[in-house]
């Protein structure tokens, strides 16, 4: 038996002893609380997007909501099946199961390390790349003395590429070496409670390879700062402005204020009043009932644009002149 196998066997025996010492905990029944929270959050975001007239955002959020509802349905089904299975025989990892788990980790991960003195077993993932952003490899370190606790493991960035806004965030779902497990929470807790180490490390690895948009410590779009939607420049999120119409992020140079309501807007959401040539948001421009041109309220005269107003005045004058002319015409004497 080679040295790594001896170490793996020793670790398996120690882990099994730890489990057998009464510290093992059954995984609590998982209910889709996270997914439900996500559903409620999405519903609020959709309502907000609709109130602001952000139709594209509302449409995208609707798709996310459909996915979240489907996830919730699936998780409820799993919870039902898990509850039903409790009345039957439950598998418990034996020392040989744990040993086989440890050996199999070598087939899945680039590096597996066992430190008996630190009671830790760790695996190293491949380089994590999410939407073309490189986060480098991660080491997942499990302390088998803490198997029953919430912080039994740490996720350590080996070649950190942290978010611009926080060095502690090394992955969209990792902060201070703690992974926010989201959809994987129940499965990870169950794997730890039953000491299924192979499943545990696989689950954490898959989480690290997945980006949950809209539920990250720092979103990928904001990882290196925030990009201005007008000029594309990157800036700190604290220095950005939000277009009040479409919600896009803007830098200070590209932020433009509506000459009417004075709120910040991007260039795409402002239009020039053809009369005064100042920039206004759509809410501050009115269509002239005469010609349909959109002009600002300040340029409206008696509810019409200046051209239509002038035309109307001219017509009124001509009518007036005509009626005056008719009145001044000599009246033929009665016969």
């Amino acid at each position, binding site marked *: 038996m080679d040295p790594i196998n001896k170490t793996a066997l020793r670790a398996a025996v120690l882990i099994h002893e730890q489990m057998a010492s009464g510290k093992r905990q059954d995984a609590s029944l998982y209910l889709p609380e996270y997914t439900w929270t996500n559903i409620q959050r999405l519903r609020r975001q959709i309502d907000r997007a609709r109130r602001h007239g952000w139709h594209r955002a509302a449409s995208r959020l609707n798709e996310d909501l459909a996915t979240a509802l489907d996830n919730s349905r699936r998780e409820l089904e799993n919870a039902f099946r898990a509850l039903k299975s409790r009345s039957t025989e439950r598998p418990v990892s034996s020392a040989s199961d744990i040993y086989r788990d440890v050996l199999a980790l070598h087939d899945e991960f680039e590096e597996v390390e066992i430190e008996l003195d630190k009671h830790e077993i760790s695996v190293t993932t491949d380089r994590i790349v999410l939407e073309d952003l490189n986060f480098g490899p991660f080491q997942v370190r499990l302390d088998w003395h803490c198997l029953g606790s919430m912080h039994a493991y740490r996720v350590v960035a080996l070649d950190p590429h942290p978010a611009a806004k926080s060095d502690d965030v090394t992955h969209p779902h990792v902060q201070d070496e703690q992974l926010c497990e*989201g959809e994987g929470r129940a499965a990870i807790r169950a794997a730890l409670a039953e000491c299924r180490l192979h*499943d545990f490390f696989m689950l954490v690895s898959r989480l690290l390879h997945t980006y949950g948009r809209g539920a990250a410590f720092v979103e990928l779009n904001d990882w290196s700062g925030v990009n201005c939607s007008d000029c594309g420049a990157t800036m700190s999120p604290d220095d950005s402005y939000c277009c009040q119409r479409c919600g896009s992020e803007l830098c200070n140079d590209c932020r433009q204020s509506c000459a009417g309501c004075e709120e910040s807007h991007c260039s795409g959401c402002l239009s020039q009043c053809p009369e005064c040539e100042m920039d206004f948001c759509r809410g501050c421009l009115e269509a002239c009932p005469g010609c349909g041109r959109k002009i600002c309220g300040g340029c409206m005269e008696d509810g019409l644009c200046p051209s239509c107003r002038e035309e109307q005045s001219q017509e009124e004058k001509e009518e007036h002149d005509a009626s005056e002319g008719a009145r001044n015409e000599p009246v033929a004497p009665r016969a």
Partner: protein
Amino acid sequence: MHKVLYVNNDGGGFADFVEIAEGTTVQQFFAERVPNGRPQDYLIRVNRQPVAADQVLQEGDRVSVTPTKIEGALV
């Protein structure tokens, strides 16, 4: 009938012994257990090893199904 250990790492993450008909392949087992899933969206392992879809499951096998994409979160 055979008895295999089925580890479902999707959602609840439960592990349970289930009975299957003799001659059941990995592909058939997956289709039966994850009816709405596509095999390419899961890591399917038998006795902790990747296997061919047409491999016939044996008594006492350990079959694990792990989604390739699992979203983390803030909560």
